[in-house]
């Protein structure tokens, strides 16, 4: 809607570079345009013109300045818009005919968004990320084999017996609490709590400085889970006794 098509932007950039190369003094309009980087598109020369063009009647100029800059039809601030030059891409110049106050004809309520094409900008990144992870997995898999221990034997319990690593935080809690607490209640409450997070946290702000409580709570949850998982993975040996991995070795399989 209010975004600048990329080809127009490029064309305008090229035109401006050309005008600058030709010499600053024979293109005063370009200078005026450069002073006003916040124009929307071709229809926003009002601000630009206030910079250098004295053909504007004084009362109009005042009125436009009093309106706080948002006087043109295109009220949208689009920082990347270099087309706010009074000299167009093909060298045409535009003259200010009238000043239309913002909101007098149409009032755009939607805030303009700076957008880019999914192709190539996003798809290229996704493609590279996928290739990188694929390459990493391939190389890792060439050098590190997945474990395959001896055939399952229900009569021979290995010591220690450990759950998969993502459950080792829970298994670690088994050493402290009753299994009904550690194995069922805590994970159920945890998952329910996570699910209800958006309905409990009524704070509308997304800014980290407004969300100190939520962020500290979640960080404590993450840190707690990480610490329990690491202890359960590397610091528990035979009989679920506490061991130091650098002394007693690692009792952990992925």
């Amino acid at each position: 809607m209010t975004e600048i098509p990329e080809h127009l932007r490029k064309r305008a950039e090229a035109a401006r570079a050309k005008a600058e190369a030709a010499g600053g003094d024979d293109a005063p309009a370009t200078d005026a345009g450069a002073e006003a980087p916040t124009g929307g598109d071709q229809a926003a020369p009002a601000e630009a013109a206030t910079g250098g063009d004295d053909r504007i009647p004084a009362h109009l100029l005042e009125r436009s300045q009093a309106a706080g800059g948002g006087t043109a039809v295109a009220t949208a601030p689009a920082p990347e818009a270099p087309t706010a030059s009074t000299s167009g891409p093909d060298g045409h110049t535009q003259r200010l005919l009238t000043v239309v106050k913002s909101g007098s004809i149409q009032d755009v309520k939607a805030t303009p968004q700076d957008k880019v094409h999914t192709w190539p900008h996003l798809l290229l990144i996704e493609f590279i990320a996928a290739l990188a992870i694929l390459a990493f997995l391939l190389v890792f898999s060439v050098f590190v084999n997945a474990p395959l221990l001896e055939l399952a034997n229900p009569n021979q319990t290995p010591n220690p017996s450990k759950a998969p690593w993502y459950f080792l935080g829970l298994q670690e809690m088994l050493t402290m609490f009753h299994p009904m607490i550690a194995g069922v209640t805590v994970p159920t409450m945890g998952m329910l709590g996570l699910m209800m997070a958006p309905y409990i946290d009524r704070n509308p702000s997304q800014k980290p400085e407004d969300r100190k409580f939520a962020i500290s709570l979640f960080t404590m949850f993450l840190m707690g889970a990480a610490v329990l998982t690491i202890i359960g993975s590397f610091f528990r040996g035979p009989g679920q006794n506490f061991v130091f991995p650098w002394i007693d070795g690692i009792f952990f399989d992925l």
Partner: protein
Amino acid sequence: MANTMEKSKGPLAKTGESLQGSQVWSSIFRPGSIFRKGYTDSPRNRSYVVMNSVLYHLHPVKVKRHAVKVSYTLCLGGLSFFLFILLTVTGIFLMFFYRPTAAQAWNDIEALHTSVTFGLLVRNMHRWAAHLMVLSVFLHMARVFYHGAYKPPREFNWVIGVVLLMLTLLLSFTGYLLPWDQLALWAVTVGTNMGGFTPVFGSQVKFALLGGASIGTETLLRWYVLHVLLLPFVIVIFMAIHFWRVRKDGGISGPL
């Protein structure tokens, strides 16, 4: 592709050109496709690349400029999805060489290592990708939380995301049993024993998980079906809703 062909006008290039001009080719690649003859980079074609392909189910034609910053998303959601695809592909390969019975499972994995071309490599990739997916889904959740991206209008998509996390854990856990080695058997014993402490229905839960009183062939078959059919089926449905909601809720969140 077309450009490199035009530079060297060998017989191969000519065949390529006539192939690209053929009806078959242009029926496969819709207008705007980068594989079509004479593709040029223009805003219209940039839109067509997405709009005229199956990608349109995943992505809009345009996205917010900040959404393509790798430092914002760290690609974690997309990578989780990519790992899921990778796991599906490698998993289908493994299914050709695996029978889910207590008598055959371990031997099949052993044979996969020793007598199937790339068998060991594909199994390694499947296993490491599975661990990585658990990690990336978890980190994706953390990233979304720290950006406050679960706030309205995205509350329900967060709930779906938590369901997806649980399904990912279940998929990984059901796959853990399948090699039928000591690691698998006892890890699952520990896990199902924990489930047995569910209040009120503890023993029923454990019975349903094991398909019997203790871990055996029935458990293996049950977890195999869960792993290769039921859970992937369910997670695909939830992923479809998840991705659809990302777009319906106005694309990814932010900037902060």
